[in-house]
């Protein structure tokens, strides 16, 4: 009896262990695969050619520079939209809204976070881009800005819900301390609550940016997909092509094992690296915040 019990324990423990390890294994395999398919690029295409400004794979122009700038400009625009809006909404929900309002808004924001990006792309094509074309008098409404707007919309719920949690966990005593000193509601938020929740709010921004940079479907639908170097001021209002959209659009039509195929994987590696950096920064910030919290609690 006892022996069978301990045997069962053993099996269950091992099963849980195995599933834990397999997650690591899968990530490692994906990474390995990415490297195996992407790294040959470096021997097949010259570095100078990679950093070129022309992406025209059919004629062996593999300049990924426009794609990187495309991704960056769209993401930057999205961040500029999502961060103020997201933090503003979080502050409103956590600090200002009456309780009934908070109870409506919180689930609503989370629902918004679950909106499939292809639906948003749809709205982008049908409503946002024609509107922008007329309103800003552009040759086409499919621009980096359109992508930024929609990506901003996608990132907002992430920013809101993480930032709201951070604000919520600021001890009530901080606020009361400030109020008791005659600070107004706004002074308390700006000078006490937000700085106290700084690290959580930063994490929210990082996660929002991470969400935006990895987004594919929406940007593919609304940014016009022209691989043009986006470094001029008005690039925001012309079509661009992002790294994600390039992979999604071309991967299906490329000959397995060709240079083009390898370059697409190489772009994947670059993307992976960028989101890795964003995530590492985010978790470093969170780690620091945790250490501080431990010090205060001890």
């Amino acid at each position, binding site marked *: 009896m006892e022996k069978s019990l301990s045997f069962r324990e053993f099996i269950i423990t091992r099963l849980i262990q195995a599933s834990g390890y397999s997650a690591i294994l899968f990530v490692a395999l994906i990474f390995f695969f990415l490297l195996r398919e992407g790294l040959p690029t470096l021997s097949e295409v010259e570095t100078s050619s990679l950093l070129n400004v022309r992406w025209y794979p059919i004629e062996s122009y593999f300049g990924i520079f426009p794609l990187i700038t495309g991704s960056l400009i769209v993401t930057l625009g999205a961040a500029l939209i999502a961060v103020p809006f997201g933090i503003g909404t979080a502050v409103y929900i956590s600090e200002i809204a009456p309780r009934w309002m908070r109870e409506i808004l919180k689930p609503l924001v989370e629902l918004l976070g679950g909106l499939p990006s292809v639906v948003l792309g749809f709205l982008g094509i049908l409503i946002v881009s024609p509107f922008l074309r007329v309103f800003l008098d552009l040759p086409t409404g499919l621009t980096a800005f359109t992508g930024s707007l929609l990506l901003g919309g996608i990132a907002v719920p992430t920013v809101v819900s993480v930032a709201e949690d951070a604000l919520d966990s600021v001890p009530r*005593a901080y606020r*009361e301390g400030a109020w*008791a*000193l*005659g600070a*107004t509601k706004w002074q308390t938020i700006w000078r*006490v609550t937000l700085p106290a929740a700084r690290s959580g709010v930063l994490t929210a921004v990082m996660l929002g940016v991470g969400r935006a940079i990895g987004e594919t479907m929406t940007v593919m639908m609304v940014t016009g997909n022209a691989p043009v170097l986006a470094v001029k001021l008005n690039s925001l209002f012309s079509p661009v092509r992002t790294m994600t959209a390039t992979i999604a659009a071309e991967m299906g039509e490329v000959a397995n094992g060709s240079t083009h195929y390898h370059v697409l994987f190489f772009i994947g590696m670059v993307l992976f690296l960028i989101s890795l950096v964003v995530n590492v920064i985010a978790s470093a910030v969170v780690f620091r915040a945790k250490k501080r919290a431990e010090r205060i609690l001890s």
Partner: protein
Amino acid sequence: MNNKILIENLSLQYSDGTESLRGVSMGIRQNAVTVLFGPAGGGKSTLLRCLNRLNDLTEVRASSGQILIDGENILDPKVDVVALRRKVGMVFARPVPLPMSIRENVIYGLEMSGEKRKSKLDEAVERSLKLAAIWDEVKDRLNDPANALSGGQQQRVCLARVLALQPEIVLLDEPTSGLDPISTGKVEAALQELKKEYTVILVPHSVQQAARTADHAAFFLQGELIEYDDGKKMFTTPKEKKTEDYIMGRFG
């Protein structure tokens, strides 16, 4: 001496049913330490938090009565709460230095009220830290984060922060509950200095502290004011049986 504060028939109930006040009436003297004591849940903190309207931010089910400070009913919704809180400062049980430096903590309230002149601010920092009996300990590191101080020091910085605003009334809600005896002694000594300039209302964390510090003492039990008298009389010859039992430690 005259009454700085006049509380008339004040009743209050929180929405969650914890603590309440029932028909409390009392006058609070200027330039004296008035102690509100009694077992937990008696309404002492609630009363304090009425005096600077900090209760506005909690869910209150019902309240009635009035509180007159210098003859003005501060429970009137038209009263400027921000100005009121500058006039009626408060120190909490757990020291809550704001996440900034010692100096910034002390001048925070002043800055919020629009004071920008550095000379004024420096002067206020020194004056209020001295009044709170901590100047000598921190004068060389005013730009260190206030969180790095010990609990007792933090609490005195919090006191200084309140004093910097030059309030007329200082409320203290168990300010020494987390402090060691030496720090407690320093805070208590500071109170005796404070009452020369301010009206001090203290919720002590023990009966002994109440006896040590009180010029006037009010005994609260389950939301009712049981007895209110001169401090010395209260702790030697209380009139009410309940007060005596509590002071003697028969319940509580």
